[in-house]
């Protein structure tokens, strides 16, 4: 875990990681008692579980990573009413990009999944949107510059 970076989590993200932590600890305890099956009986099981079934080192390093996260995270909370008009962590932003509309929720790196519309606050677009208001045009610089026009900001935390 890169501790130089802040760890931001939404309430939902935190709940999932806490659940995963409890499940993996239980799995580790089973494995060390040597009464757990060494391989899963079926592949129809929870996919995240599968990754740690046979690899105790991997299981331990994931547990250690989760412990670091759960000790150091900062919860993303909705901003005060006055600050609702600008983009901060946790905001869902409707933007217009070259005549097309899209919607992003700004989250911490661990929860980012751009295909699901969750973009990291540390990505160039995430960074550029933070602090901006509805109606503003945000230019993300690169050899090919892109303009994101903010149409709506909401908080669904």
């Amino acid at each position, binding site marked *: 875990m890169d501790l130089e970076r802040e760890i931001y989590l939404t309430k939902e993200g935190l709940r999932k990681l806490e659940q995963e932590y409890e499940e993996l600890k239980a799995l580790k305890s089973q494995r060390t008692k040597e009464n757990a099956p060494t391989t899963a009986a079926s592949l129809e099981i929870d996919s*995240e579980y*599968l990754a740690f079934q046979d*690899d105790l080192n*991997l299981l331990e390093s994931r547990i250690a990573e989760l412990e670091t996260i759960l000790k150091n995270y900062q919860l993303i909370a909705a901003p005060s009413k006055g600050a609702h008009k600008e983009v901060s962590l946790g905001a869902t932003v409707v933007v217009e990009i070259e005549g097309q509309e899209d*919607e992003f929720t700004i989250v911490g790196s661990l929860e980012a999944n751009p295909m699901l519309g969750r973009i990291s606050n540390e*990505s*160039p677009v*995430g960074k550029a949107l933070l602090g901006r208001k509805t109606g503003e045009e945000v230019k993300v610089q690169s050899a090919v510059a*892109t303009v994101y026009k903010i149409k709506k900001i909401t908080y669904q935390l």
Partner: protein
Amino acid sequence: MSSLLDFFIKLGKLKTNKRKGWVLYGIKDPAATADHIFRGAILGWVLNSINKNNKKKGFNDARIIKSILIHHLPDIYIGEETPYDSLLPKDIASEISKKDQDIIREILKKLPQVSAGLERKRAIQRQQLEEKTFHRIVAKLPNEIKKDLEDLWSELNKRRTNLSKFAWESAKLESYLQSLEYWRKEGKVQHKLWNRWVKKNLKESFIIKFRKEIDKYLINNHKKCEKDALCELLRFLNEVGRLKSLKRTGWVLRRVKKPESVAQHTFQMTIMSWVLGKIKGLDTDRIVKIALVHDLCEVYAGDQTPYDPILVADKEVVRKLVEKAPRVPKAQRIEWLFKKREKEWKAIVELTSNLPKILQKEMISLWLDCEEGLTKEGRFVSQVDKLVNLFQAIEYWKKDNNFPIESWWVFIKERVDDPLLLKFTDELDKEFAIANRISSKNKNKRAGKAKSPKEK
């Protein structure tokens, strides 16, 4: 960063270099060096893993993978060598003329008659040339990764250790397997000569065992696979071999001539992930494995793209569509994503279903790690995958400035957040801006020249 960029661009040559042997045989759309390296690395890894499982001892999988990944690096500058080189017409192009083809066909009918002394002398000369070239290629890389590469190379080039012998022979076995696949498909390969060559040169006992298995099914036409691990491995490698000819959809949609295959992409991405991961201080043994398996599901699931939910049959509409990043309504995008995931999950399970269970689970776990970001290595490789796409898009754009590159830039700024990779993106940005300025100047010059006669 610029030395890394230069190194990664050079790697690209192995994706376009068609393997000399297959070109000489006149194989249609032959595998490139990178295709061979990709499957060779998987073969070495899986074969070693099965051997370890049987004997309860064996080599480090990742070190075998890494050795195979670098074994053709000198070819970037000096090209491939075949035992026939001194007998061939000079200056053979990648596409051979009909007249040369007839001459070559005669030459390839028998192994060159060379004395043992001369053969040894040539092998030493080649080894020395490869040694010198390898050091030239890695000379400017950051020290930490340069040292890793040089250590591996010094073991591999002189085959000083049992591990390096195993890796080298695994790579040769991949070529042999490919020769038999071409022979069965197109009949142009002198498979008996290949068979003689491997019998003489491959000496590792488990490699020989697998070679015999290959012969049994591909030469002697043995049909039934008796639930034997090596027979199932052969079937698995045959299927994985499909990725050598599966062209990546993103480039096909953008009408790239001769686009890279999934295997070639994986080769380049694995080395890039390894090198960048080393600089970042990550577990590169895990990284190379994740990168190697990340697209294996495409054997059955195909190469799906974010444009899929909005694709139409009209080619002209598609041409316009891919000029911009796809902006699909959220609900539609999520539905497509879940279907894609399900299809890929089934594909990776099916592809690995007859491998030893421990290996199947390892491969699926690594694949999931890349998909779900379960470890820092998985999250890193997943972002390198996106960076490699932009990197390749720039290479295509350099060849043809009409290539629609915009969407790749947009994607990268939305999807990558790793500080090291963003630094690398900035380097790409600079290089692209320079190339863009040069290209615009040239366009203006050409436009000026075209106008001048009229103006006169």
